[in-house]
């Protein structure tokens, strides 16, 4: 794996803990994220991540026909597309409506002509596994409005009818209890330190509504619900099931004798529907693959995201389902310096034969990037400033002695940090971002810089990381990028990964607040008129890669 830097969001650590977990602990990965996945709340001056933001659905659409479904009809249509979109019950690929006229492709393939032309009956056909709905006796007279026809089947299923009856039965109770639960909905502050998102609130309200009694178990709400006499459970008339228990068994969904009988006669494993094939169904279905039915495609949603603490909107997409623009987009990449890490001893040699930069294959030359125990290696950190003001950055390594606290009886040696990191001790500048750097036609400049970088790498390599000159310190400044060098000294008995938490602290001056033209995530940190220096601090985890034990050392020079 290529060396990587991830950024810390403190939401998993609780209020009192400000520092991230040690990098070798499993909990570490849950707290660190790639920079481009993080948000930034200006109000709280804090990083937020997908685990802690509150989510609100701002619109529903079908991922296949891309129709934007009004929220009013989402419920009636049971969260699935009500047009002509179905997924294959066997492979989940999208099904196509085809007519049953004879194939006429001269190429010998069973070419199926497209919908809306040709003869009835129409049926659904899978382009991937070639399943078709005629196999299970589903055909249509017209190629349109198929979902409505299939939903009729769904709705007439005994389980569905039973569920409808249950809902009907509880309706009067639901109405009163939802009234009281909406009255009693107090934001819970005791158990969760984060306020529940409105989606969670909606879900819990729905649960309280649909499963009577759930709302009552909220200790905060109990007193108020208790006051509501009409919601008394005892006043409910007894529910009589529409069908006898055991009827469901005859439908083939109970795992009883008929299933055993069917299994006895089976010859191929494929005759049993896999769990995945049955997973997405609303009701329990039969075990037999031949009983599987096409599924209406579940809808997707567009979401807004809010800061969990101050409720300010961090992400607000445009209404149109397929638009990739945002009305509000406060992402951390517009506030924090972007950082990349590289090991110069792995670069250069293989740069030329890598066809695509974004997919460096981890499998080939696995050992080329590895570091040997007992050696030291330089590494490069490139910091890119997204702000319109220059920043001054200071880096420091979080001490690793955190682990020593856990067990004092363990031998001293095992707890010793297996490697030592050197970083520039003084702060260094990163120039301001300017639109000009991004210009399309400055390729020449980029080319030149790349050459310089190549030279730089060559020099460091000659010294084999031992040269005292410029292994640690600022190596290069270009545009809004500063490259600094660090060094890792790996202990002789070291194992595992060179992975360490790094504290990044940057100061920025904001004397002329720039008006944000589009309002969408421009780096505008407005401060008072007088030039003011502010500091922002965040944690990162730097993963330089695995350590090779000394025994496995292969010396190419011999």
């Amino acid at each position, binding site marked *: 794996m290529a060396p990587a830097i991830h950024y810390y969001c403190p939401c998993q650590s609780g209020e009192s803990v400000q520092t991230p977990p040690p990098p070798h602990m499993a909990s570490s990965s849950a707290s660190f994220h790639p920079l481009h996945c993080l948000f930034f709340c200006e109000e709280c001056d804090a990083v937020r991540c997908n685990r802690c933001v509150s989510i609100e659905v701002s619109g529903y659409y079908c991922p296949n026909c891309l129709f934007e479904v009004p929220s009013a009809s989402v419920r009636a249509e049971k969260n699935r597309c009500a047009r002509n979109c179905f997924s294959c019950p066997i492979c989940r690929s999208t099904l196509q409506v085809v007519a049953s006229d004879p194939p006429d492709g001269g190429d010998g393939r069973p070419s199926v*002509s497209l919908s809306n032309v040709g003869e009835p009956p129409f049926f659904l056909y899978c*382009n991937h596994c070639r399943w078709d709905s005629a196999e299970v006796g589903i055909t249509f007279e017209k190629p349109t409005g198929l979902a409505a026809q299939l939903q009729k089947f769904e709705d007439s299923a005994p389980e569905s009818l039973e569920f409808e009856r249950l809902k009907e039965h509880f309706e009067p109770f639901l109405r009163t209890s939802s009234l009281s639960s909406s009255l009693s909905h107090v934001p819970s502050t005791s158990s969760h330190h984060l306020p529940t998102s409105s989606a969670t609130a909606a879900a819990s309200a729905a649960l309280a509504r649909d499963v009577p009694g759930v709302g009552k178990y909220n200790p905060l709400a109990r007193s108020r619900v208790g006051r509501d006499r009409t919601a008394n459970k005892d006043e409910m008339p007894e529910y009589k099931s529409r069908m006898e228990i055991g009827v469901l068994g005859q439908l083939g969904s109970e795992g009883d004798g008929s299933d055993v009988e069917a299994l006895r006669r089976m010859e191929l494993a494929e005759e049993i529907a896999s769990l995945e094939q049955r997973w997405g169904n609303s009701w329990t279905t039969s075990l037999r693959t031949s009983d599987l039915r096409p599924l209406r495609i579940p809808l997707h949603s567009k979401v807004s995201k809010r800061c969990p603490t101050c409720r300010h909107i961090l992400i607000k997409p445009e209404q149109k389902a397929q638009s990739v623009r945002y009305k509000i987009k406060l992402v951390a990449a517009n506030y924090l310096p972007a950082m990349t890490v590289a090991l110069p001893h792995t670069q250069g040699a293989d740069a030329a034969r890598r*066809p695509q930069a974004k*997919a460096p294959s981890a499998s080939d030359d696995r050992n080329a990037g590895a570091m040997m125990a007992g050696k030291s290696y330089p590494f*490069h950190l490139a910091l890119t400033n997204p702000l319109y003001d220059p920043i001054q950055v200071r880096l420091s390594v979080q001490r690793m002695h955190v682990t020593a606290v856990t067990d004092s009886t363990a031998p001293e040696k095992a707890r010793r940090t297996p490697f030592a990191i050197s970083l520039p001790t003084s702060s260094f500048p990163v120039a301001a971002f300017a639109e000009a750097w991004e210009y399309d036609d400055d390729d020449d400049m980029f080319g030149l810089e790349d050459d310089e*970088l190549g030279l730089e*790498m060559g020099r460091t390599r000659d010294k084999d990381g031992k040269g005292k000159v410029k292994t640690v310190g600022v190596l290069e400044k270009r545009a809004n990028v500063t490259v600094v060098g660090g060094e890792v000294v790996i202990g002789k008995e070291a194992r595992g990964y060179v992975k360490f938490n790094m504290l990044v602290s940057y100061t920025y001056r904001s004397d002329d607040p720039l008006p944000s033209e589009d309002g969408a995530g421009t780096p505008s940190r407005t401060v008072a008129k007088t030039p003011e220096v502010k500091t922002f601090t965040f944690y990162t985890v730097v993963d330089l890669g695995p350590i090779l034990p000394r025994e496995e050392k292969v010396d190419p020079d011999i």
Partner: protein
Amino acid sequence: MDAPVYYSKAEFIETDTGNKVSRRATIAGPQNIILGGKTIISSGAIIRGDLRRTGPGHAVVISLGRYCLVGEGCVMRPPYKTYRGNFNYYPMKIGDYVHIGANAVVEAATIGNHVVIGKNCVIGKFTIIKDCAQVADNTIIPPNTVIPALALFAGSPGRFVEDLPESTQEMVESQTKQYYSRFQPLER
């Protein structure tokens, strides 16, 4: 900070608009192909501009926008179907900042902007890929699939995996631009 990706200067033809086309790529029917500029066609790629709609006159068969990459060994072939008894090819339109990984076979109808397709993918006939979508390596997308904006698809058949981050557009734009600037000739 990323190292340059070198190519042999003799192998590539660079156009006025900065397209870089390998001499080892097969460009059939070049008059029917449009490259938007700063687009790279890698060695071994096959682009079938010759598979055009029947009928007189000029026709754009395959168009690619700016900062695209057609990876090594890719096959780009316009989709076809028989409609009312007539066999025909249909044009393929690809937006800006689109990277297609090595050895992919693409028969899509449209691919939006800022789309990344991994290596060894098969993109079936008449597939529609919306803006900022991504297809993971080794994915098989069956014909007529629609991939919505900002969705990641993977598997065989390719299925929705997750929504991509809100900053995908900026990420892909800078990655594709960077790739173009890193793609440097080596004299020799």
